[in-house]
């Protein structure tokens, strides 16, 4: 348990993070984030390395495994400030997902073998949970890991695996035995992606980008020492992973940045001789989004303050997920509405070197593209319907 950190200190820390980003984020990366351009793996690694040098990458990990033992509140303030300042989205698979799992459930050898390489950005990870038949109902997964000599042979298909094409390793759930309940008999495995039998097929989403993949596993070998925790206890580990994420699911920092960007683009865009931002209907929509943002921030703060006093959130995390996704969808819809004034252009013909940045068109198109990709925010990581089910059951006992 952490002591509650006084608010003035958090405000100072937030400022420090924003200033750090301003001073240290490479300008090409900054520009890509601003226009929602296509970040490459190398861009992410470059930025992660800068954060690591400052001691701010994986700082929420326990000190014993190379972190700084940050409280959930400090982590929240940090991540929101980073996003607000225009830093790239932090790929969560290593630092936020598998890292904490290995720190909690891994043996010493696993901690040694995997964690330093995550902090140093030497290994990129992906998350292999979902399958064609196992989406909302994750326990329906069919990928099998059968014992074979010194390890397992894994067969099956993973779907929607984000950034599998960049990954060296995948943490995945696979069935090691058939039990009475589908949640039992699932194991948490660390799988080397760079080996025969792993086939990655790209999937293009409606923003016309390649983030997600199908991953086919054909007799892929996972050594016994890459099993995390006990065999058949994967479900419990997956639930632990979710709990570490609880309080940061709402991306309020990103929402702040996008809202500011909507405002800037709407101030530049004109309608009937005046800035679009000054049109009452548009402004009203903007104000509503601002109200929703500040409400969500207040709710996050309230939960984080209580968490600092040892009151762990339960169903509230689902409420944050619902509102967080809705908020990003609302804000980016305003961005799409700005883009609609000029025909909903998603890609621009490269101009003949005339448009030096900042390119207003590129920024507006970036928001439009973000509107498309944010439709997934209410689908992944437990859809909003599933979150409603969770709360109805946890809070009211409805079945």
């Amino acid at each position: 348990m952490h002591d509650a950190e006084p608010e003035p200190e958090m405000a100072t820390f937030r400022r420090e993070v924003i200033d750090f980003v301003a001073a240290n984020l490479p300008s090409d990366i900054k520009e890509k984030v601003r226009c929602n351009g296509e970040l490459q793996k190398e861009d992410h690694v470059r930025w992660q390395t800068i954060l690591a040098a400052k001691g701010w990458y994986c700082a929420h990990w326990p000190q014993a495994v190379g972190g700084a033992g940050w409280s959930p509140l400090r982590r929240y303030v940090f991540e929101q400030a980073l996003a607000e300042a225009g830093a790239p989205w932090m790929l969560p698979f290593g630092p936020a997902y598998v890292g904490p799992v290995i720190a909690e459930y891994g043996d010493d050898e696993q901690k040694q073998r995997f964690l330093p390489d995550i902090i140093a950005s030497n290994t990129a990870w992906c998350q292999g949970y979902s399958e064609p038949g196992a989406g909302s109902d994750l326990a329906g997964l069919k990928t099998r890991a059968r014992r074979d000599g010194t390890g397992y042979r894994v067969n099956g298909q993973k779907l929607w695996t984000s950034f599998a094409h960049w990954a060296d390793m995948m943490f995945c759930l696979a069935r090691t035995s058939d039990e009475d309940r589908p949640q039992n008999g699932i194991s948490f495995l660390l799988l080397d992606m760079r080996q025969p039998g792993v086939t990655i097929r790209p999937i293009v989403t409606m923003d016309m980008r390649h983030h997600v993949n199908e991953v086919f596993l054909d007799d892929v070998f996972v050594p016994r020492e890459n099993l995390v925790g006990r065999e058949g206890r994967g479900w419990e580990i997956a639930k632990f992973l979710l709990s570490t994420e609880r309080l940061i699911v709402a991306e309020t920092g990103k929402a702040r940045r996008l809202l500011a960007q909507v405002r800037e683009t709407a101030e530049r865009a004109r309608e009937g001789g005046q800035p679009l931002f000054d049109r009452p209907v548009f402004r009203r929509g903007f104000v509503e989004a601002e109200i929703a943002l500040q409400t969500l921030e207040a709710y996050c703060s309230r939960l984080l303050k209580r968490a600092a006093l040892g009151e762990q959130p339960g169903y509230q995390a689902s409420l944050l997920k619902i509102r967080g996704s809705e908020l990003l969808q609302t804000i980016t819809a305003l961005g799409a509405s700005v883009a609609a004034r000029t025909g909903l252009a998603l890609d621009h013909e490269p101009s003949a070197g005339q448009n030096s940045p900042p390119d207003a068109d590129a920024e507006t198109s970036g928001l439009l593209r973000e509107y498309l990709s944010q439709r997934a925010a209410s689908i992944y990581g437990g859809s909003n319907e599933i979150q409603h089910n969770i709360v109805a059951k946890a809070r009211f006992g409805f079945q």
Partner: protein
Amino acid sequence: MTSLDDLTALREHAFRWVDQAYGEAHERAGRGLAEGYAPGMAAEIAGQGWLAVMVGAQNGGMGGGLREMAAVMEAVGRGLVAEPVLSQGAIAAPLLDRLGTPQARLLLARVLDGTSVTVMMHQEADAGFERTLASSRLTEEDGRFHIHAAKAPVLDAAGAKILLVTALDAAGRTAVVAIEADAPGVRLVRSRSVDGRMLAAVHLDHVAVPADAVLNAGADASAIVETVLEEAALLVCSEACGAIPILVEGTADYLRTRRQFGMPLASFQVLQHRMVDMLLAAEEASAVVEAALDSADGPERKRAFALAKIVTARSARFVAQQAVQLHGGIGMTDDLKVSRYFRRLMQCETMFGDADWHAERFDRLRG
């Protein structure tokens, strides 16, 4: 005006054509092309008369009206037809037909036979959804004309041969000027629209135009232009009304077949109710569009058209968003039609003004 039987036959024929002859490969064929559509297919569509529906018989057209074109646009939405139908059959052709000058009729003939994609460029670059002309100018000096205008991006303009550019003359009348897209001084700025079709904005910096390119021949074309824009806004609603039921039925089918937690998704009550809300949105959109068509010749025309756009835009957004949501991850993929209907409906929703813009208009137009 055609009879009801003719109208039904036209609609059925158009639906059958998109269902049987116009497949996914056609729909996506234009994506890699500079025009944003397949020129061969565009010619084929012209050949089946879709662009001549609203044109008077004396000008080689079918002599139909809004209802007939609405039926065609429904088919376009249903099949996600990427070729220029709205911009030709619902805008350029009726505009040229109504201008009626000899030069306009010449250009019209080439629209109808599919040899010359012709796109009206009216909206000014800084106008947003507003339709009034402010900075587009046509000047005349010793019988020599010059045009000066910056127009907002318009669908299909990237592949156009002729641009029909509106501008104010010295007397404040609206002129319609035909400009060859590749003429000197014409600067097209191309972009790809969210639905894969191509847009172009045009910048005309005091470009010289021959006298016969001024199609209104001294008359004020503002009423004609306004009528064309109003009707185009309604016809894009018909396009949406063709697309929306595909999403409603497709989503219902998906919920029946996709299983999670050991049962079909269709057994979850929240999804059943969502489907009903989608259906309601679809029914309302069809109802207001039909009402607008019924009121097209009456005193309530403008408000009925605005209402149609408001309700259809909202329905399009709701149905499209929920269709993606209820499909889950697969709904996000470019390969599944659902996301392509989603993106096309974004165009239908906002082209010629979104729901908010038309709601303000709806209020202003109160008698």
